[in-house]
């Protein structure tokens, strides 16, 4: 019963006190998503050995933490007669802390369950697609009943094991690249060598039929490949996945090839082929040019002199390699940097780094003792929420704003976990303050 401007509550306790309730802290964004939709569900994903992660509708991930208090928290609700009843007493709430789960590593692990390995073309698929008997999202029976195996990668299995939203999961699958087999619903990773081979076939077909690189129709491409002598057994899903990997979508099933995406993919393969070898710039560019399809001209590759150490953080290998100097490393952190002829490229893929700022910076400082802000930012921007490929279609202003926001976040981590020192030339560089 309420008086004007006031309220009087008479408390009782429910018959079932204390009842089984929990309190979950919501972010304003999650609450807005739920209220806007009117109905929906939040899903906490992961394996039993993972830290529980909740993913919201915008693919933001949060770790669940229990926060304890010595205070007593009583939940009250009205009973059928309108009386206020104590329902339970709590000393803890569940809090949400932003996190970046290791998505790619988990997806690659699940895709790797296929005993045939990555897809190398229909002609190499000797075994029939086998059923996973009674897959429960985790394990299935072997077809001969002799035991159980881990389920292969279906949408259900990926949703249960990967701590990400659907949009982000699809982006990771597209980036690998992987395709979903229409007949079985299973995802298959495409072998890197076959991926490039298929791309070359696509580009050769494009030249032969005088199609525009900016408007490749996936169905037409697949039909052409199938009709050619060398394209027998081409899977439409694989063609679509390869086109999507190296292109922008310009319409339903229509793609515009992006040369830099191809160059970055090949660069990753060049680095991966020789482990942690440091590459003189000239050798790296020669290896890259030797593998690049001739139809794709990248200005950046044509001028080796542009590849001084100062250019590397903004080059097509940003986030994949860092520069060091063959001679006189004091020049590394000067405004002009080290010339291309004296620059070495050290492979360091962002995808292999920890997904938490402190641990990532620790790993980066283990790789190199001193970094300038411009050198290190490419290795932090994914944690700061910046995805250059996703912003390819955005206008320059939007891209610049997103990059600036990510740089600000990265700089805050540098201040927290790094120690700023001035190089002899006056450039600000960072060393680790982590033990």
């Amino acid at each position, binding site marked *: 019963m309420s008086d004007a401007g006031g309220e009087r509550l008479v408390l009782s306790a429910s018959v079932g006190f204390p009842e089984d309730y*929990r309190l*979950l*802290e*919501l972010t304003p964004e999650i609450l807005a998503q739920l209220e806007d939709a009117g109905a929906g569900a939040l899903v906490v994903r992961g*394996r039993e050995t993972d830290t529980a992660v909740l993913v919201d509708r915008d693919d933001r991930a949060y770790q669940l933490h229990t926060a304890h208090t010595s*205070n*007593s*928290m*009583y939940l009250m609700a*009205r009973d059928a007669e309108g009386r206020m009843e104590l329902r339970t007493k709590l000393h803890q709430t569940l809090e949400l802390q932003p996190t970046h789960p290791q998505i790619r590593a988990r997806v690659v692990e699940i895709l790797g369950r296929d005993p045939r390995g990555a897809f190398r073309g229909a002609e190499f698929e000797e075994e029939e697609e086998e059923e996973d008997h009674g897959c429960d999202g985790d394990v299935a029976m072997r077809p001969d009943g002799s035991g159980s195996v881990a389920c292969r990668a279906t949408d259900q299995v990926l949703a249960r094991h990967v701590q990400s939203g659907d949009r982000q999961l699809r982006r990771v699958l597209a980036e690998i690249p992987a395709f979903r087999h229409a007949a079985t619903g299973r995802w298959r990773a495409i072998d890197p060598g076959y991926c490039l081979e298929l791309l070359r076939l696509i580009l050769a077909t494009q030249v032969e039929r005088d199609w525009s690189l900016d408007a490749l129709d996936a169905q037409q491409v697949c039909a052409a490949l199938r009709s050619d002598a060398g394209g027998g057994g081409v899977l439409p899903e694989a063609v679509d996945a390869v086109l999507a990997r190296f292109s922008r979508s310009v319409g339903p099933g229509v793609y515009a090839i992006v040369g830099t995406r191809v160059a970055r993919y090949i660069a990753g393969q060049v680095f991966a082929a020789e482990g942690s070898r440091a590459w003189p710039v000239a050798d790296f560019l020669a290896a890259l040019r030797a593998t690049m399809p001739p139809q794709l001209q990248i200005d950046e590759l044509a001028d080796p002199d542009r590849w001084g150490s100062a250019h590397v953080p903004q080059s097509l290998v940003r986030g994949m390699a860092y520069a060091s100097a063959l001679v006189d490393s004091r020049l590394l952190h000067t405004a002009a940097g080290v010339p291309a002829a004296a620059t070495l490229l050290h492979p360091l893929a962002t995808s292999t780094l920890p997904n938490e700022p402190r641990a990532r910076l620790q790993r980066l400082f283990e790789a190199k003792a001193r970094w300038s802000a411009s050198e290190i930012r490419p290795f932090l921007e994914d944690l700061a929420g910046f995805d250059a490929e996703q912003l390819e279609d955005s206008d320059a202003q939007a891209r610049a704003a997103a990059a600036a926001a990510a740089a600000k976040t990265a700089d805050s981590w540098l201040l927290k976990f790094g120690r700023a020192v001035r190089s002899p030339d006056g450039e600000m560089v960072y060393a680790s303050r982590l033990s």
Partner: protein
Amino acid sequence: MSQIRIVYSKDGLREFRLLEAQGSLETDSDGGLCGQQELAEIERQGDKAVMQIGVHRVHGSVVKLKKPLAVLRRRPDSSSAGGDRDCDVQYDIEAVITEKMLFKARPDVVL
């Protein structure tokens, strides 16, 4: 392994209140607080609140929560008798609380 679903429905929300106290509500009754009737009164005026329990009166305040709290209640398990490993645990959001009544002062004795 299982996933946990937390289900929200605007139509299914109820009115819940949160009371936070530095002490706790105790009773000599064998059954504890369970089923106790009219054990306390709270008068709220604006952002002030006063709770009276027997001869004890404690002053408090109504504060806005920094982040809203969802009140979760677990649905009964729907797993089969065979121990289905694919069982999803589900919670319903029964309310979203945006403020609490906080009592952190020592109670006075009122005769």
